[in-house]
């Protein structure tokens, strides 16, 4: 168990992820720099942390997607290595096309930080840490978390038997199906994809709810699954 947490300029949840992967889950947690072109030997899981990489210039995650380390992360994911993108990390996964779609500014136009209820949809690969249909509570903290995607891709995602599936869905939704929280299409909070469902991206922060002292532990299973590698 060796989890790598990538630090980009502007990442601000990298230290939190290192803390949870190392001190809470008990994995070996190592820091990786955005300019590195290879991941350290023996890494079993990679976390792309939240924050404002490159100051959110152009679009959130867009410049990070072209950094040297992301080429290595893509190779790692293609070989079935576990990759978890949290918040800004989810944006990077979409921008680098490891997952489809994009994250647009929240419907209300401002940053939202609060606890949200979500349903875990499939129990595959990295989300196998949860039961299908399980309700989990995690905090969100983002300004650009409204998932958008073209209709055909959405249809494939929603079919539930394709290579990319909805991992987490916000429970509170509008009549058109969008998330009440931020307007996210079909209430999508996170996706799971990759050759063996080894890539998960989500807007909520599992690392912020992995310890009792913080009032919730629903994120621990995902952090543990990542740090231990996909099932």
């Amino acid at each position, binding site marked *: 168990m060796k989890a790598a947490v990538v630090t980009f*300029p502007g990442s601000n949840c990298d230290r*939190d992820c290192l803390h949870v992967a190392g001190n809470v889950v008990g994995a070996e947690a190592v820091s990786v720099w955005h300019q590195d072109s290879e991941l350290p030997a023996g890494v079993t899981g990679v976390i792309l942390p939240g924050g404002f990489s490159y100051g959110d210039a152009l679009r959130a995650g867009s410049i990070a997607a072209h950094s040297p380390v992301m080429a290595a992360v893509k190779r790692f994911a293609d070989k079935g290595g576990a990759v978890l993108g949290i918040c800004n990390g989810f944006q990077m996964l979409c921008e680098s096309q490891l997952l489809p779609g994009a994250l647009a500014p929240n419907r209300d136009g401002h*940053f939202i*930080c609060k606890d949200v209820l979500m349903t875990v949809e499939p129990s595959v690969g990295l989300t196998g840490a949860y039961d299908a249909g399980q309700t989990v509570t995690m*905090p969100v*903290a983002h300004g650009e978390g409204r998932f958008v995607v073209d209709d055909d891709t959405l249809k494939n995602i929603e079919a539930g038997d394709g290579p990319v599936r909805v991992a987490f869905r916000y429970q509170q939704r509008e009549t058109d199906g969008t998330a009440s929280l931020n307007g996210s299409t079909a209430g999508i909070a996170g996706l799971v994809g990759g050759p063996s469902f080894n890539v998960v991206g989500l807007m909520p922060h599992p690392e*912020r709810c992995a310890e009792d002292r*913080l*009032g919730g532990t629903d994120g621990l299973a995902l952090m543990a699954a990542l740090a231990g590698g996909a099932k």
Partner: protein
Amino acid sequence: MTIAMLQDTDDTQLEHALEVGLSEDEFERAKEVMGKVPNKVELGVISAMWSEHCSYKSSRLHLAKLPSEGDNVIVGPGENAGILDVGDGFGVCFKVESHNHPSYIEPVQGAATGVGGILRDVFTMGARPIAAGNLLRFGAADHKKTPHLLRGVVQGISDYGNCFGVPTVYSDVDFDSAYNGNILVNAFALGVVKNDQIFLGRADGIGNPIFYVGAKTGRDGIHGATMASDSFSEDDDQAKRPTVQVGDPFKEKLLLEACQACFAEDVLIGIQDMGAAGLTSSIFEMASRSGSGVKLHLDLVPTRETGMTAYEKMLSESQERMVLVAKQGAEARVQELFHRWGLDCVQVGEVTDDGMVRLFDDGVEVGVLPARPLADEAPKYDRPHERAEAPAFVADDGGFDGHAKQALVDAGRTNLDWVYEQYDRHVGVMTLVDGAQAPAAVVQIPSTNKAVTVALVCQGRKCSADAHEGGAQAVYEGALRAACMGAKPLGVSDCLNFGNPQVPTVMQTLVDGIEGLGHACRELGIPVVSGNVSLYNETDGVSIHPTPTVAMVGLVDNLNGTHLHQPQDGEAVWLVGAPATTLEGSRIGAPSCATWAPADVAALVDKTQQAVHGGQVSSANVTCHAGLWQALVETAVRSGLGVDAQLDVDGASASAVAFGANAPSVVVTTSLNDDDVRKAFAGLPVVKLGTVGGDSLQLRANGETWSSSVADVIAARGRRIQGIAEGDGHAVGLGESV
């Protein structure tokens, strides 16, 4: 350019001095200190250093009266921020600072750069920020500018703090027509430092290299410090916009990480933020503290605009910049650490021993000024002060129902979810409770089982009736809030927001406010370790309420067993401390202020802290603003549980019992039996009010009854702030249609 070209006659220089904000007397003093007629560059530097903002010339005399010593004080006032020892080899470094004038002119950038500035003040000391907070005062809820200012200020704080990656855990927001023309934006930050790795703003060691690091210098904010020391007139805000700086939180985050990397290695002598008055104040303060001099090559300063003059470079207030004094031999390493984070790091000068700051531009000496006299011997005024007669208190005890309806939609004491939800409160994974959930925010100190509490308090209304007592009560309320979370009050940072000190009655409120604050701190045995002063908060000759803000930091020395505000179904509710008997000092009627006995507060703080820390009570809450009613409403709203309470007080009106705040008290919830409650609070008056539970909130006081379902109370309070932000300052009460 030659020096001759810069030298000018006495007359034209006096004209220029007046233009940049110096008085005629100050110009004379400048000539004395300099031993010559200062040139234009020198005058610019002097005017910035001697501005109210940098020199505290109207308040210095009185600030000296504040207690700043204590066993736990590691760094007191005078540095970028104060540091208090919390044990285990760690200290907490904190400060609160105003950004009032810029936030009124340009709310998003004004508030953002206020946050950026206070964060830099904290992390230059070697600390990593773990908590931010703010205290905001806007004009009346239905004033035409309030929606725009509220939205902008909250967005500015949100944009900056969230991107930087500090949790914003406490916010206090109120609305009052006294702030229609001058809003208050007081920003607070707290960081944790290893006690053996503290850095100061010093320029020691002859020949040591001076580095400029961070963002490039532009023409923004030139004379910002002077602007911040000025008063407004109607529609002034547009004309002053160019003096407001633009913030880049991304750059500041890089600066934090590069500085942290430097702190971890033995490469630095001193470090100072370029805040108000930019390069000028940082260089002069560092040299002054060390008794050294500095040689500065302005042509080497990185700029983002071409053709910037020496004058502009010295006075720019571009954000996210710092001055470092490195150890000789470590130059290459320092540059490497900053370049790794993509930041400029340029050697622009060196430390000298002649006590002079010498400014060079392309090899030509364009200014020579003595460091210490400009920093330490700035004019100090004992401005005349004279107490205005306080209006007599007029009781308005009737109309219980009306007061209750008003209290429910009181924008200043309502649900702040709309504000808090825009702040990332959890980054850092150390936030245990935020200020929306409890009387104070609680943030764990990394690598320890301890936590700090944060609360920002001011009593503008009370101060407008009695600034001395109002200043004291801000301290008392802060201490009570800390105690309600099981923390011992540790120390204070103050932000003194006042009007025009050249008006004797306003000056008197400044003197009284400082003395009251200092008196209360002495009574409770806590030091004031940092702060700032914001004067000239006046528009068209009308000053704001005297508003000394207190940022109270408390310490929970062991989190095990401490109950962090978790009332439980079926528990008893008690009032600890004397019940209110009049509306003096309440939010009802004209501003007024009752006097609290310091010994009563000290005992209440002490017993409450012990009971919460020992787990004997599950929650405790203050009654300082809208009284018992407020504390009960907050208990119900935060827990979602109902409360059934009754209190009858001989000789008092129902309104006074419910909404009064003329005596210090707290409301606690507990599962202890009656005898054990009396034992826990021995020596203090206690009265059982009722029980927690059900889904309705009921208060029976002296024959009057107020009751409502908890859901209705939550609904009535829930949208109040958002409504104001969206331009609907009209209060909608319970049972009225929205």
